[in-house]
């Protein structure tokens, strides 16, 4: 079980690295799905199979499909890839890398300084246990999540409309910007 944790953890990290360095959106998406599934495995290894299942179904399944649809719909061509490559110069990624490296070190340092020693036994926390607290003391969270989803639904359907009345105005914007610059 420990091996499963470490191995899938390694896979998750590598896949994530692939996501952020890849220039092709579709490939990046596939890496991301791999990363998510790896994390789902980690969950299982830690003894949270319900969460792992959710991760695979909702995250790697639903959300990523959404991404894939969008990317396909936009029909991102090779020019995008070339542009991505142009944007990914060392000058650009060096700073963020250092910053996140420092952040990581700091987090690790905090973890190290904390009173550690707790070990995860891998004892399974079943869906039943989760369900009973969700619909017990944490009912409000569920309600909140529901409302959030509803709000997201409304927003997405509103924002995503293509025939917006401001569309014509928006189309002039890039030219205006060019002139301004």
């Amino acid at each position, binding site marked *: 079980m420990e091996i499963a944790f470490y191995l899938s953890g390694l896979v998750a990290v590598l896949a994530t690295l692939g996501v952020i360095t890849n220039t092709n959106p579709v490939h990046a998406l596939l890496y991301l799905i791999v990363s998510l599934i790896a994390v789902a495995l980690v969950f299982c290894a830690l003894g949270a199979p319900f969460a792992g299942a959710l991760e695979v179904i909702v995250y790697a399944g639903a959300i990523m499909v959404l991404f894939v649809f969008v990317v396909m719909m936009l029909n991102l061509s090779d020019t995008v890839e070339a542009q991505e490559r142009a944007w990914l110069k060392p000058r650009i990624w060096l*700073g*963020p890398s250092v*910053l*996140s490296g*420092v*952040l990581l070190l*700091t*987090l690790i*340092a*905090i973890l190290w*300084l904390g009173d550690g020693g707790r070990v995860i036994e891998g004892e399974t926390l079943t869906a039943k246990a989760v369900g009973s607290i969700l619909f017990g003391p944490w009912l409000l969270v569920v309600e909140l999540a529901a409302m959030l989803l509803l709000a997201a639904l409304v927003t997405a359907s509103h924002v995503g409309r293509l025939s917006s009345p401001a569309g014509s105005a928006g189309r002039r914007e890039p030219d205006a910007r060019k002139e301004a610059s």
Partner: protein
Amino acid sequence: MSLLPLTFLLPLAGTLVLALSRGRLGPRSSAVVGVVSVGLAALVTAWIGWHFVDSGVGGVDMTLWTWLSVGDFRPTIGLRLDGLSLTMIGIITGVGFLIHLFAAWYMQGEAGVTRFFAFMNLFVFSMLLLVLGDNMLLLFLGWEGVGLCSYLLIGYYYWTEANGWAAFKAFIVTRLGDVFLAIGLFLMFRELGTLNIAEILQRAPEVWAEGAWQAQLAALLILGGALGKSAQLPLHTWLADAMAGPTPVSALIHAATMVTAGVYLIARLHGVFELAPGVLYLVGLIGAVTLLLAGFAALAQTDIKRVLAYSTMSQIGYMFLALGVGAYDAAIFHLMMHGFFKALLFLSAGAVIVSCHHEQDMRRLGGLWRRLPLAYAGFVVGGAALAALPLVTAGFYSKDEILWEALAAGHGGLMLAGLIGAFLTSLYTLRLIIGTFHGEMKSDNARHAEPGRGLVHGLPLVVLAVLSTFLGAWIHPPLEAVLPTSPGAGVHGAGHTVLGIVAAATSLVGLGLGAWLFLTRWRWLSERVSTGWAARLWWLWHNAWGFDIAYDRLLVRPYRGLVRLLESDLIDRLLLLAAWLAWGLHRGLSLTQSGKMRYYAATMAAGVTLVLLVLVVSG
């Protein structure tokens, strides 16, 4: 006596009528209002004078109302009539009336006659208040008032910019003196607790010992005021430029009355000066130096009015000299005589100027004696009085008295200066008359001279001419009760006779030399002074010893530089630095609001990292 306020209320009424007419009065009616108001004032003065002399009282006080009263500070609007003020108001209204009358002729056809007479009446009003005021504050009111009128009348021909600047200069230079006078008033009020002149004269000897520094300082400050007003060294530079005004103005303000206000002031406050002998001597010294310097300057002028202006300075120098030796009555007597003959000279000059179509440069006049006999006569009589032609002229008696007093007071040096001055006077007087009236006519303006006609033109000249002869010298101002007796009074020794003969001889020699030089050697002279060291000397005299240039370099230019330096309000700029700082910060901070999401995210991450780092390091 209760008519006394009428003397100045009549001119004031004239001013108000003219000022409030808003152009509804024509030039003729304006002149009538202006002349009649002063004429009536002269009549009232004559009546008052008659009664005053008749009653034989020393002085009459008349308080109209309390000006203001705060604590001990209670100046009044009060008048004092005594021999001195009576003499002065006599000159002001009498000579003033004649000059007004002449001005009615002189100003024919000029633009703004209403304005002219409004200012002239206002001047007479202020001048009367100056001499009638029984306290220093009221005197100061008149003092500044005449300064303002002088300013306005010098700048009467406002459309020439130089005239405006001449008026400006006149006001500022005299104002400088006035500031000293004002400080003198502060000092006297602090020390003596009063501004009433009679009380000042009474308390000054009680409070101050002779030669006390407060007395010296007070006298010095008052002298400062007098120097400015009377155009004495070193505040004399304005008078020559002041000739930019119409000629009657020069006659009234810059010869007969206002410029002698300084003499009046010192005579009025003689009690303070008596306590400061050093300052009193300084008065005489300044007078002597001024009369010499101005005499030389008068020699080198070509503008006939400027000659007269320098001659006025020089004659007031005589008055100061008399004051300085303690002969106050001689000073006032000369003031009066000078008022007559200088007014006559100026009015004659005015007659010449108008007749010759506003030509007043000697180099373009000449040979006018046939065409303008009345003006010529005026010049001759006035000039003779100015040069103190013995026995027949008024000027001889007054000047002689001054010289004798100087000698009697033991100031031989001052007397000598007076004698040299008399010689110079004869010279420049003859040069003026010969240059203007003899020789050939040097321009078309002179050739087409049209003599003035009418009573309005002739009467003032004739009356003043009569007063400038020995007949004028018979007028005896009733000063005994007001002014202390002078050192030479009552002493009629042989010295006096000898001095009289010497003075007469000086004057005659001067006249003779002048006649010879200017009648026969005019051309030689003008060639002589255009080359070599004589030219330089001539230039110096022509520019009145370069005072103007020096003041311009030393005072005017630095002032202008200072103004230009501060023009943009430096202090305000300094405070604006705060605004610039805020603006700079704004620019800096608004740079961070770039709208670039990645920067926001990076900044947030950096911030979080920083907080965590701090936690790590500190924890």
